[in-house]
């Protein structure tokens, strides 16, 4: 069958998802005969408040050819070594999920197995002391990972925390330079093809009609095309992830610039703290069945480190996933595709993944149905695996101090997660899969951080004597301490590389 290329691509919605899509498509499809349009309305706010990311974002930026220091200065970005979780397993607990593994395997047996054995014997320090990125994060330090693979300083990765509004602006300039046409306006009507049910065109408030072959729905929670026009359906995951509202507000930084995001568990949800160069993003994600909006806002504001810099921004959402993220000629990217709370900074990664997959399965006018089928299969897997990882944070708790925690602690969880937790608890084995963004190290960090401890020794680790093991663990711990203190402070490093906002 001859290829019949499509010509017009319309992205509905600006914001992070819309402009990431526009920037990536304008770059990757350059040299071909495509026209890329984007509609956004200044009246409709974007959700982006201050975004924390995962290391994959660097590949996205590199692919587009961004200069890292320039990008950081313009988005007022900071470096991120991980996320600190406070009060999750128990009130008073704190652990960091770092971008890097704990220790190193010894005698072919994974580090956490040895640590668990020594911990049971009362002879281990807290597991975070065997992690360089955590020690650096706790000390407020940062440097690029070393290139020498033999160096301990090469064993971690990093991401960014940035102002999502500024990131969208940065991407917009890039995309417009590469020929993307931006239309200002609100969409008031959508026309479908009578026969195929494909979206034909959208109409703006000013009467303009914009037709296209492929529509990318980046309209946020509403899903203007994917749901509003095509009724693709939504899998509701509130039974496992019951939080349904958020309130957000920035404040000024008070204290040193921390190279990590913080998520503090509260009575009926949790509060994020995302440090940027010029301010701190804060937000309270909560479940409206257990706390009123006013109390949630009060809980947020009362713990701010300085005066709020803006009005409170209220958000409502339903955790879950669109049943078909690609339906007919509409591909939903961003919050229109599904909503998973930002507990593990997955939103931008899921956008990035969706863009990559859209390019992999890029359609032509034959609209081969297998493309959407496979795209949806792969995206479903990603969303479900992120979902399970998020549920773990709520479910693996000993907290019984509020009705909210009693619910999540005792709720039935998906079989896939129950199996994973049982396998780790039994013998410290992490169940892993081909697809899914969180690797073993992430699961281990959250299990151990939230008191899901292996009950039994790994029999293969018992060939090493306790005294030999103690010496190895001590030397790993010392090395992490020394390395963590050999690198500059986070703020100094940002200045050193010229990434500070001017």
């Amino acid at each position, binding site marked *: 069958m001859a290829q019949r*290329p499509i010509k017009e691509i319309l992205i509905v919605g600006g914001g992070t998802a819309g402009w990431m899509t526009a920037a990536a498509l304008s770059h990757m*499809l350059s040299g*071909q005969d495509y026209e890329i349009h984007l509609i956004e309305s200044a009246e409709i706010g974007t959700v982006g408040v201050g975004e924390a990311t995962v290391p994959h974002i660097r590949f996205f930026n590199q692919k587009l050819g961004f200069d890292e220091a320039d990008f950081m200065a313009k988005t007022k970005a900071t470096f991120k070594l991980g996320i600190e979780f406070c009060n999750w397993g128990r009130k008073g607990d704190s652990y960091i999920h770092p971008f890097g593994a704990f220790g190193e395997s010894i005698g072919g047996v994974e580090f956490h197995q040895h640590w668990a054995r020594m911990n049971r014997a009362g002879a281990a320090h807290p597991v975070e002391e065997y992690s360089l990125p955590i020690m650096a994060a706790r000390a407020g330090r940062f440097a690029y990972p070393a290139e020498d693979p033999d160096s301990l300083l090469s064993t971690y990765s990093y991401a960014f925390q940035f102002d999502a509004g500024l990131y969208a602006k940065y991407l917009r300039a890039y995309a417009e330079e590469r020929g993307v046409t931006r239309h200002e306006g609100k969409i008031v009507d959508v026309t479908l093809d009578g026969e195929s049910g494909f979206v034909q065109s959208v109409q703006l408030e000013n009467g303009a009609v914009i037709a296209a072959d492929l529509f990318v729905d980046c309209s946020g929670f509403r899903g203007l095309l994917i749901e509003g026009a095509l009724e693709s359906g939504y899998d509701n995951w509130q039974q496992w992830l019951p939080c349904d509202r958020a309130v957000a507000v920035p404040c000024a930084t008070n204290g040193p610039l921390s190279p990590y995001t913080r998520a503090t568990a509260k009575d009926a949800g949790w509060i994020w703290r995302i440090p940027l160069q010029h301010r701190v993003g804060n937000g309270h994600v909560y479940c409206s069945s257990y706390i009123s909006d006013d109390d949630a806002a009060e809980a947020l504001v009362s713990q701010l480190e300085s005066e709020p810099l803006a009005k409170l921004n209220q958000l409502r959402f339903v955790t879950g996933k669109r049943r078909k993220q690609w339906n007919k000629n509409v591909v939903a990217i961003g919050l229109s595709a599904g909503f998973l709370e930002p507990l593990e900074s997955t939103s931008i990664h899921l956008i990035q993944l969706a863009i990559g997959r859209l390019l*992999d399965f*890029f359609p*032509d006018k034959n609209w081969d149905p*297998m493309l959407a089928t496979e795209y949806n299969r792969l995206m479903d897997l990603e969303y479900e695996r992120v979902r399970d990882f998020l549920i773990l944070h709520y479910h693996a708790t000993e907290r019984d101090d509020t009705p909210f925690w009693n619910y999540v602690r005792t709720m039935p969880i998906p079989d896939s997660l129950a*199996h994973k937790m049982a396998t780790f608890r039994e013998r410290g084995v992490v169940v892993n899969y*081909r697809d899914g963004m969180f690797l073993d190290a992430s699961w281990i960090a959250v299990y151990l951080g939230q008191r899901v401890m292996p009950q039994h020794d790994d*029999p293969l680790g018992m060939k090493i004597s306790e005294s030999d093991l103690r010496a190895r663990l001590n030397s790993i711990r010392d090395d992490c301490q020394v390395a963590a203190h050999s690198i500059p402070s986070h703020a100094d490093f940002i200045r050193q590389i010229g990434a500070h906002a001017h």
Partner: protein
Amino acid sequence: MPIEKIVIVGGGVAAWLAALALARKTACAITVQDTGGIDDSLGEPFAVETTLPSISKLHDLLGLDNEQVVRETGSSYALGRALSNWTATAGAAFHPFGEVGASLGPVGFQHLVARLRGEGQSVSFANHSLGALCAQSGRFAPPPAGTRSVLSTMEYGLHLNVAEYRDYLKREATALGVVTLPGSPTELMMDAQGLIATLAVDTGEIIAGDLFLDCSGQARLLSSKLPQSGFEDWSEYLPCSHVRTSASMSSAPPPLYAHIDAHENGWQRFASTQTLLEEVVVSQTADPDGYMFTSGRIEKLWAGNCIAIGGAAAIIDPLASTQLHFVGMAIARLLKLFPHERSAPVEAAEYNRQTIEELENARDFAVLHYKCNGRKGAAFWDECRACALPERLAHKIALYKSCGRTALHDEESFEAWDWISVFDALGIRPRGYDNMANGMPKDRIEAHLAQVRNVMLKAVGSLPTQHEYLQSRKAVA
């Protein structure tokens, strides 16, 4: 109660691989209960076992050196499979181990080829595969560790002389303290928990153990005696069940591949080592001089304190040479999930989950050859094309036909390029390809292909023939 004693039933390759691995990695006492007879522990009693590249990982785990194994057992190296007479035309195609060609920027090699083919050019994958080019010219030496040349991308398996290999493994394991006892189990004595406590053996001995491995091939001397020992039969997908083998001495330089030729009711395989040439005929029709097998798996691979490994666990039509690979994977998996006591339902559940995924994916890879054959008008092959398909395989085929991509799942034995090579060998040409291949000028793609081929040809030219290589290593030894 910790696992202190492991009893392995069966005296074949599968048993000795497991024995050696467990002797190296655990502190347990290990007994091999040698049941004698022909060695069908992998599934079929081949004289030459053609392995996948995963054999290197297994040997690493066992502390063995490929080169030494080849020298001590008269085995040889392998770079893939030649497939002939699977399509309507009489031509042959090559399925090399590992990747083919090289991507150009973000665009996968198969899409570049599809673009050029779409413009009427005739482009062959094999001409851009290091493995295929080496196999064709008979040149091979294992790539040195740490090399940065294109040779570092070469993946190779082995053609093993099974009898010598088994003896070699046995010597190594025995040196580590593994004990061999003669006799076959006649009865299992269970404890109060429903676990195997002891075996009664036909020599009159009673053998106690904490963990039992059934490596007895299709006889399934332990598994078949356990309660609820069902078998999931896959012969609706894999219709061949008869195999005849004939091996003869051969000192000719062995080809670097197995040749798999489809015939009227099945297929035949020619595979050589330094000392043997074996012909294997696999068919649907009964063969009084042959050996019978049924493709399928037992329902509970790890049940209680008994784990079936090798042919005792599952048999998949030997077309894709997966049986030894399964043993290696089973061993690695068992070590990762090694139980801390006799009853280990959590470990068993995870072991079974992974193993079943793996078996089904590998089964599908074999089924693909039958399902997408091009021998129209031949009754057996017409039936194969009409047969039912597992859902996942139907999706894989439909996706490849649509856009030249492969849908891979957890626990795949074959990666994207194995699937693509076989799809292509079977004459399947995707309708579409990566749109980004259209964004590149044609001459840039052509230049890229030419460069890939030149780099590979140059690398191949720098290698000795396998025969020269093997002779030089003998001299060193």
